[in-house]
């Protein structure tokens, strides 16, 4: 069966340089200039024109195999593809369908599930969000209480998810729900798919302290999802969900955000006339080195992915270094900005307009989401350094 648009060619026959040139030409010719380097997460209404174009071209799922409608890129070409998107300042969309749901269905799903769900993901007709965190299950995710009970041919879901990114732009959700209350924490959880239009679902956006509403809380009141929407085996949802976490960590570990932060820092320093100040120069040099060295260690992990090998728990260090470097840069931005550090939105500084607080607001939650940095340090301490429990 054809899951998506056929590819123009077998990309693996191109050299890395030729492939990079093809991708670069495409984004430079067609990506809307006003969407480059957005200061906040874009809503679907804002960036869908670009992503629908990518979908129509067959480029929406670069990492998926061709048999499932992806570009079938090798790991090294996939990194080139992502680098070119980052180089042009192209923001992600609500891409959990591509990054999580697709790979999970390929690995754990049934043939019927793949036929039903992969084509609309590839067409961007169905947009997915991730229903993992709950009010009492953040870092301790296995403590989740949302419950799903099998009733004939459907699961009945009751409970609440929260911090669900862009649920209000999504049509579907992957839900981790407790299906066995007697079992030990991790072992009584199942992985379900849910259409958010189902009666009993309420999505409520949460305004964040930057003034944006990127995340939501989602309530389930006797929501029925077909039993055929169970992915993997009953009570094996933890294994299914965990299988995609390494990739998330390398994604968060990209040097892109800190590099963007350095650019803002330099603009602010120039506008304030301190770019040659000796104290500022030393602090800047420290941060430049922190970012350059992030690039070195990112390349190390990317090479592991490039060789098609699995990422070990060591990748947690990439997430910590990337996010804390970004935060140090953001902190120096507002310190350098002086009085301007209290002004929100695009601020007139010297002869330019700079969104001074955007990196700061963007940086703060990076150490919270994707597994808080405290959890990453726990993982490293136990699994890499073999410290006692």
């Amino acid at each position, binding site marked *: 069966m054809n899951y998506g648009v056929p590819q123009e060619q077998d990309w693996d026959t191109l050299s890395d340089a030729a492939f990079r040139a093809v991708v670069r030409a495409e984004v430079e010719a067609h990506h809307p200039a006003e969407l480059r380097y957005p200061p906040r997460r874009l809503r679907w209404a804002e960036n869908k024109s670009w992503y629908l174009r990518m979908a129509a071209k067959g480029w929406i799922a670069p990492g998926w195999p061709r048999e499932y409608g992806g570009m079938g890129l090798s790991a090294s070409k996939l990194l080139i593809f992502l680098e070119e998107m980052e180089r042009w300042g192209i923001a992600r969309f609500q891409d959990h369908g591509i990054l999580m749901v697709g790979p999970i269905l390929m690995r754990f799903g049934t043939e019927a599930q793949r036929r039903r769900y992969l084509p609309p993901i590839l067409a961007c007709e169905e947009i997915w969000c991730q229903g993992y965190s709950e009010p009492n299950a953040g870092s301790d995710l296995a403590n989740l209480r949302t419950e799903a009970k099998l009733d004939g041919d459907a699961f009945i879901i009751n409970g609440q998810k929260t911090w669900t990114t862009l649920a209000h732009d999504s049509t579907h959700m992957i839900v981790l729900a407790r299906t066995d209350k007697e079992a030990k924490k991790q072992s009584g959880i199942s992985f379900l798919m849910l259409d958010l239009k189902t009666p009993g679902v309420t999505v409520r956006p949460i305004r964040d302290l930057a003034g944006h509403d990127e995340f939501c809380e989602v309530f389930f009141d006797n929501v029925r999802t077909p039993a055929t929407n169970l992915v993997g085996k009953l009570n094996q949802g933890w294994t299914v969900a965990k299988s995609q976490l390494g990739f998330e960590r390398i994604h968060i570990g990209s040097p892109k955000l800190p590099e963007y932060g350095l650019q803002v820092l330099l603009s602010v320093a120039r506008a304030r006339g301190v770019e040659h100040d000796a104290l500022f120069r030393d602090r800047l040099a420290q941060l430049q080195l922190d970012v350059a*060295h992030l690039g070195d260690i990112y390349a190390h992990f990317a090479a592991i992915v490039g060789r098609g090998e699995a990422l070990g728990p060591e990748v947690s260090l990439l997430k910590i270094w990337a996010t804390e470097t970004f935060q140090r840069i953001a902190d120096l931005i507002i310190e350098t900005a002086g009085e301007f550090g209290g002004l929100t939105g695009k601020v007139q500084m010297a002869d330019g307009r700079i969104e001074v607080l955007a990196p700061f607001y963007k940086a703060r939650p990076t150490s919270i989401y994707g597994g808080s940095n405290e959890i990453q340090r726990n993982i490293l*301490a136990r699994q890499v350094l073999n410290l006692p429990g």
Partner: protein
Amino acid sequence: MSDDTLRMLRDSAADFATLDGARVRRLRGTDPGFERDRWREMGDMGWLGVLIPEAHGGLGLDLGAAVTIAEQLGRALYPEPYSASAVLATLALLHGDNAALKQTLLPRLASGEIVAGLAWQGERGGLDPDQCSVKLRESNGAQQLEGSSRFVSPAAADGYIVAARAAQGLELHWIARSAPGLACEPEARADGSASALLRFEAVGVSADTRVASPAAASAALRLALDHATLSTSAELFGLMDCTLEMTLDYLRTRVQFGKPIGSFQALQHRAVDMYMQKEMTRATLGAAVSSVLDPACTGEQRAVAASSAKARASQAALAICKEALQMHGAIGYTDEYDLGLYFNRALVLSASLGNASAHRSRYASLAALP
């Protein structure tokens, strides 16, 4: 150079160079502060000649081999002046333009018969080789060196390659330790080794002692310094890796309040921060060495790579050693415990050839701003 060659070097260096705390302690404060016999054994192993061409009695390998050996020596806290003599002084000679001196000295350096130092810094230190304070003067038709140079390592070398400012630019000269007019004042370093303050009063030089003419001297000196900076960074990496491993062992076994102290989250997270510093150093040093080994690497790119690695390695080594001391508690502050040996060596190597702050500053002035 093949991966197999590198692996063999690493394994042989690791087997040969294990920490002998008693030896390290015994040699502290002595003259010359290392063992001549051990130095010749290192020559026999080929380590002192890795950067010397085969025609001159070396192995003809590259920086990759030198940093591999340096890392192992850093683990074992060798007081023998590997980076100072076998990398820094050796490369300055090799990239100079005096064929006769290369012919006589390189085989003796490779075999471990002699030890050489490089005198390039003025009395105030600093990273700019053009700021050296030794001058070459003409007096009644004779050429003489005047001035002083500090932080010269090892203090007790058989001879020194001395950077001097001449009318036409920088020159390098080979001066035997016994040369008339040369005074060597050793200064004790934190780890029990010594560097020297050399004073030159009418020290005679000639075309025969000239390692590098103004046409070659500056480039040779900069190349040697960048390579030695990376080799010192590799020693620091080896040292910090051992210090962390030692600290993790302590955290796993030291029991207080009925539990191993490594089970306390406050300490676990700090141990992870030490581990991150170490891994960042590994990644950065590896990237810097690769970039220097690239035949297209320019002198400026080489300097950026060296500064990048040394800034990280110096900072990380000190951070790790300070945390290691805190986690060990009082036992770590005793001379009897090996941690102090690592700690004091970290102080010396971090400061030598430019500390973190000096290299940050050089990095900032060379690397293009984003």
